């Protein structure tokens, strides 16, 4: 670059001459210098800014998995997660795999054939499936051992239709309690790199789409076709995901603490004196703060949330949903609620039906087609419940969305109950 000498032209002191290469070098140096400085400044400023980890996320920081919602409970920040079953619980179960057995209670082969045909299978296929070497009788029950070929031959629609028809008949535990993947969570399984690709391909063939969720029922068939324990464990670890929710209460400097404390503090064994100081401490922070919902729960769920029951000793009952629901407010669990009859009595005597849950502690009861109480959960706030799914030590106590629970118990009717003392 050079400036023209004086006398070479009008205004020549203010004119700069560049060769092409000189201009390029000049521009590159300028761009590089600015980029470097911008990088440093932007990086260090971001490093000092507190994010939504402790602070309440702004609307543009929220997405469909992490969002806030207001109500009488205050402002809840929820984050969808999926829990996988602990690997330690899988090794033992998967060492030997039993082939599937379907037990049709009080039904004969002809009735089963009619059931199959009524739910989408052609006559010919039914005859082949229910060949004499695959069926046997046990008292008034017919036992059917579906072959791999039969299971694999079903297309997604037929599988959904047939399995839905058999659900609730106590034919097979996986028919009654399939793995289910609400929303797009089945993609997480399909995208998981831990299972063997062949196993994932087989899973893809067997998973089927219901009205509101993907389901997977043919667990025994899948496991039977996976040659090694290690691969079975990996596949099962990926399959056994349960949608759950991490929930936090947001307290802003202008939050009405009285309203929030009233909602969460009215319940037995939840003391205002414990809740209020925490909420007020957060309110005093310049930007407010959040607190895990677990701090607002009574001792029973607080101690158990996101933990698994211990594997039971032989003959020892495993705490189930009803035990968990009816002990929700207890400091010491009452083991009478391990018995269905006692649970029924307590629900009949101490609760009344309401159209919708609206109070912390309301109960959701899931009734099957025969009116049997198959599941219960405790309403927390918004669309969240505290639940223990199934009488199994491999399912934790957790918070779920009502819609996900409904998808799991799709064919059941929900009844909402409130304690007579509320």
């Amino acid at each position: 670059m050079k400036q023209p000498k004086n006398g070479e032209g009008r205004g020549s002191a203010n004119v700069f001459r560049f060769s092409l290469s000189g201009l390029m070098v000049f521009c590159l140096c300028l761009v590089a210098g600015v980029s470097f400085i911008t990088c440093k400044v932007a990086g260090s400023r971001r490093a000092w800014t507190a994010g939504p980890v402790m602070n309440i996320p702004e609307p543009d920081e929220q997405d469909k998995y992490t969002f806030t919602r207001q109500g009488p409970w205050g402002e809840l920040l929820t984050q969808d997660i999926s829990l996988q079953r602990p690997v330690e619980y899988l090794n033992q179960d998967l060492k030997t795999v039993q082939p599937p057995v379907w037990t049709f209670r009080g039904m004969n082969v002809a009735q089963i054939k009619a059931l199959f045909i009524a739910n989408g299978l052609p006559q010919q296929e039914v005859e082949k499936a229910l060949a004499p070497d695959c069926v046997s009788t046990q008292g008034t029950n017919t036992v059917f051992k579906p072959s791999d070929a039969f299971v694999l031959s079903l297309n997604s629609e037929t599988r959904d239709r047939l399995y839905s028809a058999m659900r609730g008949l106590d034919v097979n535990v996986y028919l009654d309690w399939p793995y289910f993947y609400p929303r797009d969570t089945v993609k997480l399984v399909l995208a998981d790199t831990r299972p063997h690709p062949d196993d994932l391909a087989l899973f893809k063939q067997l998973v089927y789409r219901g009205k509101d969720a993907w389901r997977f029922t043919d667990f025994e068939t899948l496991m039977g076709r996976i040659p090694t324990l290690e691969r079975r464990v990996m596949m099962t670890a990926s399959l056994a995901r349960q949608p759950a929710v991490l929930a936090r209460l947001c307290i802003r400097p202008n939050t009405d603490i009285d309203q929030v404390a009233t909602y969460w503090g009215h319940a037995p064994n939840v003391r205002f004196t414990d809740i209020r100081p925490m909420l007020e401490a957060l309110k005093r922070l310049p930007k407010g703060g959040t607190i895990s919902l677990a701090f607002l729960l009574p001792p029973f769920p607080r101690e158990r949330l996101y933990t698994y029951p211990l594997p039971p000793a032989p003959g020892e009952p495993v705490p189930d949903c009803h035990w968990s629901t009816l002990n929700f407010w207890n400091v010491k669990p009452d083991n009478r609620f391990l018995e269905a009859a006692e649970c029924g009595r307590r629900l009949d005597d101490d609760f009344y039906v309401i159209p919708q849950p609206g109070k912390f502690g309301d109960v959701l009861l899931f009734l099957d087609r025969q009116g049997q109480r198959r599941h219960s959960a405790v309403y927390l706030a918004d669309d969240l419940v505290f639940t223990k799914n199934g009488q199994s030590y491999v399912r934790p106590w957790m918070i779920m969305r009502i819609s996900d629970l409904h998808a799991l118990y799709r064919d059941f009717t929900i009844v909402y109950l409130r304690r007579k003392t509320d």
Partner: protein
Amino acid sequence: MAKLKKENGTASAKEFRLNLTGLIGLCLCLVAGAAFITGKLVGTRQESAAGPGLNLPASDVADGAISAKQGPWGELFTQNITLERPTEYFSNELKAVQPSVWTFHGMTVAQVKSLFIANGLTQPEAERALAPDRVSTQGTNALFKPSEEFVLSLRPETRDRLYEALRGLDVNLYIGSPHYYAKDQLEWLKGDARVHPDDLALFKRLIYGGSDVRRFSDYETLMGKIPTLERRVGAAVSFSRQPAVLARLCIRPDADIDKVVMYWGNTSNVRLIDVRPMLEALKRLPRGGTLSLMYLLPPFARERLYTFPPPPAPGEPIPDCHWSTFNFSSVTPDKRFLDLAECKRHIDHDFYQIARPGLCGDVVLFKNNKGELRDSAVYLAADLVFSKIGKNYTMPWTIMRIADLQALYSNCSIVYLRNKTD
């Protein structure tokens, strides 16, 4: 900008001429464009970088009340809060304020007098304070009812020296366990509208201690001079503030879960099968997530964290720091730890001394200059402990920073212990 013409009038393609304005314009455009593009690129990269939210604080950096710390425990975010005692605990006890009583166990009046003189009071002052209408004997103990004049007359240095000498002698609850305030907390108190200015002025006369931490022991005297219940409650609530910490574990998509799980799952009654699924669920989130430290604590601590003990029935012991420390990993609290002698036996038998805490569950002991236990807490991670200060139902179980606890027990030495089974 113009290309330089050759002498024959045709333009040289290899030379560029810029006047000053043009050069400035070109530079500005280059600078603005480079800064904009670099800023966008840096922002996008940060957003898609691992992290449970945007713009996380760098490790070991504090941003106001929030700090992040990396270690074998993972990545811990902590937020300083202040807890106030529940108003409900004050209303009753402040309806009728009892005057202060100092009980000198196993001491005569003469010995008490000597103690006073040895710690800053002049002979006449001591004589006047310990006038016959102010002292009495109860068995082997001397009882002293300090007058308001005496308490108010103490110079700050004398108050500091005398009360330090009395601490540990179990003379009075508030001398043994004073309220303490960091410097910025006192600034806050000045702006608290709940405290009447006269009451604040009186409070300022009564606080004592160093420049970093001030203490307050003359609670009964102050309350006795406040004329109305409403003012007493306002002052008591405001003065009852204590520092605490909200802590969350941060799990990024690239977090080493094994390391984190091994740290937190090493504590008794914290099961790896409970901890791992939660952490892995967070790791699978696109930006990771955070989890309240509460989920990683054993049941005893999980159930009590940020709650207050219920007011005891007459004669019923109050759970104190040692009971809390040695029951930290208990499923069912062991009442033997209400007895200090039992705690000492437990320490001698089951613990060994270490230089610094490093495992969740290590014990932090505070001993006075006579080797007597003054306080204990359980080390969690970073600089955090699980603590229950004092034998007082109005103090909650909290997470605190070791430094804050040290400030409270500034005249004590710290000893770190580890369980022999660890």
